[in-house]
């Protein structure tokens, strides 16, 4: 049985895709884990980070990825997730795929503008059930058919309250919630925990939520104070104590050099490497606690 982890936050721009990439790289490198990344975000952030910008169009031409998956779902056909798997990873250390590896189910822009139409059409067709429930049931069955090959499945959820994101949450045993220390981000986080997880989805007892502070500016006194309070347990967030700093090195890490090009982990993450290792270890401790 693999561990299903959703990386989610309804607020955009908090670093969900970056966190997903870091976790995939970190878990595969540090623990030799076999990782499957499912990019459920039509913005395809983690697809571009792990496969390169050119891959998005190439995979679209090959009819591989989220767009095709949702079209198959819409027409009532089998999704066959295995058919959408591609090899990810630009790290020399993972090139042999032994022991760690990263595979991914990519996404593309194909449905970015058409998602509301998609949701409307499917809802009209299957009125009785919630779309996110239907989607999560279908995806769960497909993941189960290939999960024996993976230790951890990471689902990069899109921002906003769409069916795709909610389906991702329903699938997960753990939710990593990247959040920046801004007022908006913090209030979205608390709303998310209260209303979406507890009231709407009734998932509060089924999943464990691990807020992760991202884009942390150590020179910002307000953020420093907030982090101090979080560590003291003031907000009862149970957040991962060590924040991921705002670092140019991390932005550079997400710029994939292109297909067939490899780089070492040190070359990729530069001076952000200790942050990658620390974050991976903190997350690994939490998600392996019940397994």
């Amino acid at each position, binding site marked *: 049985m693999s561990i299903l982890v959703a990386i989610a936050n309804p607020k955009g721009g908090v670093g969900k895709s970056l966190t997903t990439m870091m976790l995939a790289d970190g878990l595969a490198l540090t623990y030799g884990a076999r990782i499957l990344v499912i990019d459920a975000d039509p913005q395809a952030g983690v697809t571009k980070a792990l496969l390169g910008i050119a891959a998005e169009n190439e995979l679209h031409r090959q009819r591989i990825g989220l767009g095709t998956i949702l079209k198959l779902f819409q027409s009532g056909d089998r999704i066959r997730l295995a058919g959408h798997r591609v*090899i990810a990873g630009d790290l020399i250390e993972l090139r042999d795929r032994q022991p760690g590896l990263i595979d991914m189910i990519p996404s593309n822009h194909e449905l970015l503008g058409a998602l509301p139409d998609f949701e409307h059409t499917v809802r009209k067709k299957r009125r009785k059930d919630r779309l996110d429930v239907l989607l999560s049931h279908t995806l769960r069955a497909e993941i189960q058919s290939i999960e024996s*090959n993976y230790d951890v499945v990471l689902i990069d959820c899109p921002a906003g309250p769409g069916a795709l994101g909610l389906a991702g949450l329903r699938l997960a045993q753990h939710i990593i919630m990247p959040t920046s220390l801004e007022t908006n981000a913090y209030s979205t986080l608390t709303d998310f925990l209260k209303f979406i997880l507890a009231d709407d989805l009734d998932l509060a007892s089924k999943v464990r939520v691990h807020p992760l502070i991202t884009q942390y500016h150590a020179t910002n006194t307000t953020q420093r104070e907030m982090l101090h309070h979080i560590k003291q347990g003031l907000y009862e967030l149970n957040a991962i104590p060590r924040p991921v700093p705002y670092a140019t090195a991390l932005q550079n890490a997400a710029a994939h050099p292109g297909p067939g090009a490899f780089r070492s982990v040190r070359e990729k993450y530069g001076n952000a490497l200790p942050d990658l290792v620390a974050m991976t270890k903190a997350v690994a401790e939490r998600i392996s606690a019940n397994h």
Partner: protein
Amino acid sequence: MLERDLYEPVYNYLHVGFRDRLHPARGDLRSIIAITANSGGNSTGLWSKPDLCIISLSRQKYGITWKIDLHGFEVKPLGCCTVQSVHEALNHTSLVNFTYLVWHTEIWNEASDECSTILSRCAHYGVGLITFSNAHDLRSYALRLPGRRHEPAPDAFDEFVETRLSKDDRTKLLDWITELRR
């Protein structure tokens, strides 16, 4: 498990575990994997239908053209694999470039009569051999012997695609070929 119940798990294995073997070290690969056991009707003849197939289009990084290969897979459930199964897989070489026997066997022991006979016959005829102990556990699949290349008649590929592949897969393949010809 019945043979027909093994098609879906083997299909997943071909995607997740086997397909990477076909990828050139530095080049490109496109592939279509299909369950063909029930396609084509009875008119195609006895032993003429691999249960699953992979159509692979590959190109080396410094290669000029794309190469199309057809790989056929004959699935045999627990207790149903004999030397005849090897010949059944071998018969597919009139259509496919590479043929494989995919055998559900709980214990693999090369010293046993059963395993060594199947393995030696496969090696003799150039039939690849894949075994698995648990269909749904993709880690239990093992490639015991890679298939050797066979050269079917030039029209055989068209014949196979026309009679065994679904309309969707045919359209996808034709789109790719049109695109890659440019």
